[in-house]
């Protein structure tokens, strides 16, 4: 039990540390692109996450096509039917604990849904939205 608690605590700490650091680096980047940048915004992130776009496969999809709208629940890859673990770090503590992994998926999934990579502002907004959800 003690070990479990400790693991949970460590995961929690590492999540907060890793994601804050990554958001901070995105913030620096966003400031470079726009000196008037103030802060990332969950509302803008929600729009990025839920709006539909012509994706890489030539089909209109959104992030929710695979991740669903309840981020505490598992999703399903719309093309392959493979189960996707919950995106919310509250439901799935492994999320956002590894910057390389986070960047890999942001790059891939922006390309899949938007057919281009995301800007620092968009990436920061969408992460802010995801971690704000229960």
């Amino acid at each position, binding site marked *: 039990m003690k070990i479990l608690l400790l693991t949970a605590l460590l995961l929690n700490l590492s999540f907060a540390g890793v994601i804050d650091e990554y958001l901070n680096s995105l913030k620096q980047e966003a400031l470079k692109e726009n000196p008037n940048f103030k802060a990332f915004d969950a509302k803008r992130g929600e729009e990025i996450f839920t709006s539909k776009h012509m994706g890489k496969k030539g089909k209109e999809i959104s992030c929710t096509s695979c991740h669903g709208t309840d981020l505490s629940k598992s999703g399903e890859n719309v*093309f*392959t*039917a493979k189960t996707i673990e919950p995106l919310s770090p509250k439901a799935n503590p492994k999320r956002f604990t590894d910057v*390389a992994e986070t960047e*890999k998926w942001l*790059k*891939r999934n922006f390309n899949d849904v938007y057919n281009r990579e995301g800007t620092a502002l968009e990436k920061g907004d969408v992460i802010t939205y995801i971690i704000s959800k229960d």
Partner: protein
Amino acid sequence: MKYLIVLSMLVGSLFAQNGLTDVAPVNNQLYIKECGSCHFAYQPGLLPASSWNKIMSNLANHYNNDASISPANLQTLTKYLNDNSAEKNMQYKRSNKIVSSLASGQIPDSISTTPYIARKHSEIKKSLISQPEVKGLFNCIACHKTADKGLYGERDINIPHYGKWED
């Protein structure tokens, strides 16, 4: 004793006569993580190395998805696929049949377009393949319930909304 015999028969029946599965099971955790997070983790013995190399050289456009991975992982996984590709696993029944079905110089783009696999699935109604529970021939485990163990025999087939398949 009787119990032991029954048990050994049961275990034996899971495997082909040479004691091997249909293809060598996946035994690489990085492969399962990187490739298996989006789709069934196909055994490397389902395609020749030439096909794997073609696939791995264009992951940024992987069947019209971005599946790019880090250069280090790309190198590790390409090596794993090469070391365990079908033509190096000819003692496994299905690897052998897949390789034997290829025309000389043929480099298939996918497992489902190898002549052997295409032929084996040719009599299945299109609607059973495209139904939401399956989505396409790429989803081995939707019907081959033991595909993750490298077992693709008829006894373990269960097609959603159809059931058992008999040739």
